[in-house]
């Protein structure tokens, strides 16, 4: 047995693979949002981590100030944060249409710093606790590990979000417009389609996905202003590996990188923060457009 050779019992390996899949689900939802935004707006959205954090904080705020529970927040927070995102797109990002990518990157990076700074000032870096919803507390003993119900739910919810996104983009008329908008916005506009509105909606949707992931993460980690910045760099690596702008690529790569990271945490824990970047470097050398990207 391979696992015996490496000195780890299979139970440990199964457990880690499952956990890797759970983390991969987060990477998938976040990188999916990035891919949607990059695909349609050509913007490298460095504010994604901050918007993910905003999603978690919105859930916390809804519970704290309005007494609304997790299930409401799971729908309300992405809508609220998505609307905020559309405001950002309409009033800030739109002004950068047609200029170099670098400007969008700088603007969104600056926005992320401002948003995080404001939240650190308001709530401190240690963050706030958010309880696991009552229906999902506890867990099940799978024999090789104890799986908290909540973590299982995270995978299910993420896959639903990814599936829904894929369906919208690949199988609906709206999705067809969106894809056409990336290929040739001028021509699409000539057909009477409101392309600026489409762009705003797409950004709002990408941001909503980030906020959705934030709500999913809230009961697991401390709801902290820094939760996004700890994650976002890894997510960017995932998007680069998958290929910028590829929806399917983002999802598959997200899950795969979760698994690879999970295994590294067993065999060489110190390197677990680095392994994804190693994969990124290798992929960039062998396939500069990413695993699923098309060469421009």
């Amino acid at each position: 047995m391979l696992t015996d050779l490496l000195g780890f019992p299979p139970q440990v390996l199964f457990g880690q693979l499952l956990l890797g899949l759970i983390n991969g689900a987060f990477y998938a939802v976040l990188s999916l949002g990035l891919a949607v935004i990059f695909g349609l707006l050509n913007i490298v959205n460095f504010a994604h981590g901050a918007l993910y954090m905003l999603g978690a904080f919105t859930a916390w705020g809804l519970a704290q100030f309005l007494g609304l529970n997790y299930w409401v927040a799971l729908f309300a927070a992405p809508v609220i944060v998505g609307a905020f995102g559309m405001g950002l797109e309409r009033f800030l990002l739109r002004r950068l249409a047609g200029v170099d990518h670098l400007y969008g990157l700088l603007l969104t990076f600056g926005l992320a710093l401002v948003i995080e700074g404001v939240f650190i000032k308001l709530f401190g870096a240690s963050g706030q606790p958010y309880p696991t919803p009552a229906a999902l507390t506890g867990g099940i003993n799978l024999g090789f590990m104890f799986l908290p119900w909540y973590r299982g739910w995270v995978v299910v919810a993420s896959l639903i979000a990814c599936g829904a996104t894929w369906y919208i983009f690949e199988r609906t008329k709206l999705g067809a417009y969106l894809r056409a908008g990336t290929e040739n916005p001028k021509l699409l506009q000539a057909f009477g389609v409101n392309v600026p509105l489409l762009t705003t909606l797409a950004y709002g949707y990408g941001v909503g996905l980030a906020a959705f992931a934030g709500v999913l993460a809230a009961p697991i980690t401390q709801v902290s202003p820094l939760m996004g910045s700890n994650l976002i760099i890894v997510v960017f690596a995932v998007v680069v590996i998958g290929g910028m702008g590829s929806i399917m690529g983002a999802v598959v790569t997200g899950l795969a990188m979760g698994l690879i990271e999970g295994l590294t945490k067993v065999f060489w824990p110190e390197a677990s923060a680095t392994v994804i970047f190693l994969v990124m470097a290798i992929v960039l050398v062998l396939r500069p457009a990413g695993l699923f990207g098309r060469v421009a």
Partner: protein
Amino acid sequence: MKTLKTLALGASALAMASAASAEISDGKVKIGLLTDMSGTYSDLAGPGAVAAAEMAIEDAGAMAAGMPVELVTADHQNKADIAANKAREWGEAEQVDAFAELVTTSTAMAVYEIAKQQNKVVLVSGAASSPLTNDACIPSGIHYTYSTTALANGTGKAVVAEGGDSWYFLTADYAFGQALEADVTKVVEAAGGQVLGSIRHPFPASDFSSFVLQAQGSGAKVIGLANAGADTTNAIKAANEFGLVAGGQSIAALLMFITDVHALGLETAQGIQLTTGFYWDMDDETRAWSERFMERTGKMPSMVQAGVYSSVAFYLKAIEATGSDDTDTVMEWMRDRPIDDFFAKGGTIRSDGRMVHDMYLARVKSPGESSGPWDYYEILRTIPGEEAYGTLEDSTCPTK
């Protein structure tokens, strides 16, 4: 040629004037506070540490030995290179006389190097690692608030005494985590306990489920968390979620601050034993100072923040008494006298730089026992300074 001569004359006159004026270099006392202003440790140190230093300076009337006292601060972002560059710049160009706070061991170590070259006083409050008063010690460095040795002798010993004789560590993979793991391992093994293994996790880590699962699989009775701040709170949350405690294992949070307990909430944190150098609700003096701190910052002080106040106040007292900000003079005065304030009763500074004072073993209250926000600790026992920090003979500091 004439201008050159005039310049030279002027310069030497200036030099003589400044030498004659006072023992205080450049006519003022300048303290440079380096801390984490926005990262993981900004709640336990950060802006609160700055506020504490400001309070100490204000309480001294912003004067020491008739000279104005000034505070400069910077965010070292928990990065050693930033801390070192800032300290060098302050020491060379801005005549900073002492460096204060320095949460995160690597930044304290880096500033120690600079302070050694420039012969400046260092008042370390936030960093924990015991090497600061052992192999890495410098003659002008004071390790003030707590140390990994004290944490090991406090929480570590208490847990072993309660039957926790097999351990597994989740260790933050940098100098502090490693020092804490090493110090606790010593205590556990000396008491006849056993360390079954450890995981070095990246710092900071966002997801602890994998590490918790491995700790669970180790079969150890005690899972020791050799990390701090958000890493500790996230590890505790994951341990609860994955049923580690329900499965009969216990968690030893080897370093936990009151700000961490506040962030976790008592529901999750209740029952955790921890070692602290300060708790606001001990006596009238601690309450009086902490209420003032609360008014200013909206939070109760962590031990690091209270330590910053105490160390800066003691340093200014030394300057006031000696009439000099010369490093050697001030250090000698401080080593010769006990510190007696709300923070440290009868604390003494040893020749290896260790400030020895009583520590406290505390247990986090349950929500039912707590009367409200910040009423978090029940003090189980006072750990006498010598027991917490060991003796000077144990220190491996070459200049002790």
